[in-house]
């Protein structure tokens, strides 16, 4: 199917309308409709990725509304464009959407009773927004899709408790500032280049030698600032932890792996494809400052994650730290750093999904995600805990998982461009992750109480009653997505070379420094 690139967005859109309309007749129909539309969307994005790999210039372009390039100059009409990077991230977005929609049956029924049709409609519209962001080739269309994703995200979070609604207010204010600054930046870009098409903007910058134009620098700073606010980079992260922590389970499972990563994709797209490598990295001063901001961001976020006593808020601060990794990988300005950043977008989406699915099951079964409620949980839910810890090991960066390989490339990048402070920070943050997850493992396996004393006598005796260690696993509709996500973490880790090959093909067009020893 040659139009599969459009169907990626259309299937969830049709599904959302169907959920909203049919939901008033039967609430049960929403769950199958959302799973079905996500399956079709994943199928379309696999088709698109295959086409992008097979095609000669490794990209597919589709201009909506029949404004063909034969009669009109580029920039008339909105273009959907999938190169290898865009197609890979789109597959991640729709794949995560599929897994979360499978998972959503029990938590949505329990946490938002009576509102299932609207919940699923917002859920699918969120996928529309995120997949649209990764596919669009038009700078203003990108703004609209960012707002589509943001507005549905506010709704999905605010459907939770009253506390979640209060947290959403901060998110609305900061999210609007971020998106508006991006819009302002696009205005300056349009003022200078006369087009909104990303390729057109890039060509205009190249052709008219706009590298030193102050207007372009203002545009770049505004766009970058807007994106950094939207991706919860450290000083602007205030909206993220509370809203993800109090959101309904399904919402945090969907938003946490995707929203920040998609915004990092937007940053990579802006830096490489729109403004160009020379403009972004060489003609300005911020390339020197951002790596140091990244250092501060990672250290602060890791320390704040250490201070949390609750799984979901700990994971939320982990996301802020991971955003720091990826921004750093881009701004150390290096071939390996960018491979690492792009691969980390993919692997971080998988492992964050894994962790949040696990935390959702713990919340569903134990009614708490506080550390003290976890004693001896491994005896009760072994499969869930295995899935959860595969995600945790990937965050730490243990070898068979995908987190190891992406961190490997990030550290290699730091070494090649001699950014020692970035490398040291990555190592420090890895140590913090080890502490975080092994502290959890201690509680979950050994039944350690509040004062750190082990309650059991060892040899399988946890000091808990039979009732507390009885095998009581999560419902299958939640367990299967978790194990699926955990196996994806390992599979992406084992087949990392295949993914990295595609990223290398994408990066070959951009002249990035590779260090001395690389051919």
């Amino acid at each position, binding site marked *: 199917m040659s139009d599969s690139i459009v169907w990626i967005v259309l299937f969830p859109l049709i599904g959302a309308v169907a959920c909203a309309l049919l939901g008033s007749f039967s609430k049960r129909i929403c769950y199958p409709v959302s799973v079905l539309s996500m399956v079709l969307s994943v199928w379309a994005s696999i088709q698109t990725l295959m086409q992008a790999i097979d095609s000669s210039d490794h990209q597919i372009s589709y201009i909506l509304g029949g404004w*063909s390039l034969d009669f009109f100059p580029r920039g008339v009409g909105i273009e959907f464009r999938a190169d290898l990077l865009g197609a890979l991230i789109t597959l991640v977005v729709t794949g995560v959407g599929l897994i979360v929609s499978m998972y959503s049956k029990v938590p949505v029924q329990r946490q938002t009773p009576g509102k299932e049709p609207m919940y699923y409609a917002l859920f699918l519209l969120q996928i529309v927004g995120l997949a649209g962001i990764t596919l669009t080739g038009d700078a203003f269309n990108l703004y609209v899709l960012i707002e589509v994703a943001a507005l549905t995200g506010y709704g999905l979070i605010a459907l939770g408790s009253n*506390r979640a609604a209060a947290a959403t207010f901060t998110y609305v204010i900061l999210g609007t500032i971020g998106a*508006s600054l991006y819009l302002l930046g696009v205005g300056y870009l349009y003022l200078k280049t006369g087009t909104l098409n990303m390729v057109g903007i890039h060509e205009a910058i190249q052709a008219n030698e706009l590298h030193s134009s102050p207007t372009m620098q203002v545009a770049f700073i505004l766009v970058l600032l807007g994106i950094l606010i939207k991706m919860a980079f450290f000083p602007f992260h205030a909206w993220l932890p509370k809203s993800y922590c109090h959101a309904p389970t399904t919402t945090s499972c969907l938003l946490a792996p995707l929203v920040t990563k998609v915004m990092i994709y937007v940053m990579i797209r802006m830096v490489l494809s729109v403004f160009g490598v020379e403009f972004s990295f060489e003609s300005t001063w911020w390339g020197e400052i951002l790596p140091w901001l990244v250092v501060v961001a990672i250290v602060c976020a890791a320390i704040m994650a250490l201070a949390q006593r609750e799984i979901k808020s700990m994971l939320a601060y982990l996301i802020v730290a991971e955003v720091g990794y990826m921004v750093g990988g881009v701004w150390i300005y290096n071939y390996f750093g960018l491979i690492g950043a792009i691969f980390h977008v993919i692997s971080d989406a998988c492992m964050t999904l894994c962790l949040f699915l696990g935390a959702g099951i713990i919340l569903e079964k134990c009614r*708490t995600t506080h550390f003290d409620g976890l004693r001896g949980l491994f005896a009760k839910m072994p499969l869930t805990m295995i899935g959860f810890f595969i995600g945790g090991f990937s965050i730490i960066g243990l070898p068979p998982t995908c987190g190891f390989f992406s961190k490997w490339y990030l550290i290699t990048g730091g070494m090649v461009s001699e950014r020692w402070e970035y490398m040291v920070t990555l190592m420090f943050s890895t140590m913090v992750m080890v502490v975080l997850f092994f502290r959890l493992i201690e509680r979950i396996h050994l039944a350690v109480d509040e004062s750190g004393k082990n309650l059991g006598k060892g040899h399988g005796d946890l000091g808990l009653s039979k009732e507390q260690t009885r095998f009581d696993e999560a419902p299958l509709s939640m367990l299967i997505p978790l194990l699926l996500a955990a196996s994806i973490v390992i599979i992406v880790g084992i087949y990392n070379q295949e993914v990295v090959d595609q990223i290398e093909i994408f990066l070959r067009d951009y002249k990035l420094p590779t260090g001395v020893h690389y051919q």
Partner: protein
Amino acid sequence: MFEEGSIFNALLVERLNYFIYVVLLLIGLWAMIAKNNLIKKLIGMSIFQTAIILFYVSIGVKEGATIPIYLPEHDPHGTPVLADSNSSETILAMPQALDASLVPNYTNPLPHVLMLTAIVVGVATLGLALSICLRIYRAYGTVEEDELLIKLEEEDSRNSGLPRKRRPRRRNSRPSNQNKQGSSLESNISEKPKRRKSSNSQIPKNPPATSRTKPSSKDTQSGSKKPVRRKRTNQPKEGNS
């Protein structure tokens, strides 16, 4: 004061539109950050977005220009025209490039059209934010940020001291989606002993919990009762599977 080359001339005459939009932008930003009242923050947000709309509209304006109209002969798919005046047969006439001398007389419609979309987005954001404000007011009884923060901190510290369980279902008077705010003090993992103990320790805890959601309790309670009951029958089934 406004002679050629002076700073006032450069700022207030030549670039008046940019000057106004930056001032509005900063007023909006200041209101969003510094104002204490949530509604005033939203008014600031509206001013902020309007400033950007003003910027876009002003860059699309050209003095003495006219509306650009899309003529039928510019249709990329061709326009059907009569082949010659005697027969009724039509052929497709392919579009020709615009006459370059006409172009300066047109305004650029694109920035204005873009702002239609941005206005719609702004309205949607404002509506959603106001409804969230309403919900905050119903739940916490205030839209002043400092009072709200005190209440939120109280709520957070109540919830983070000890792990809490959802209260036993037969006593559940709160909406069931508030998984964090159960009020049992027990931290056991198993279901049965906890339920017995916590139901005893429940009773003195009830008044603060219910008073917290007083404004909205009537709607949400009646709405949540049904699904909670359904959930109860589901629970053993899932445990066995």
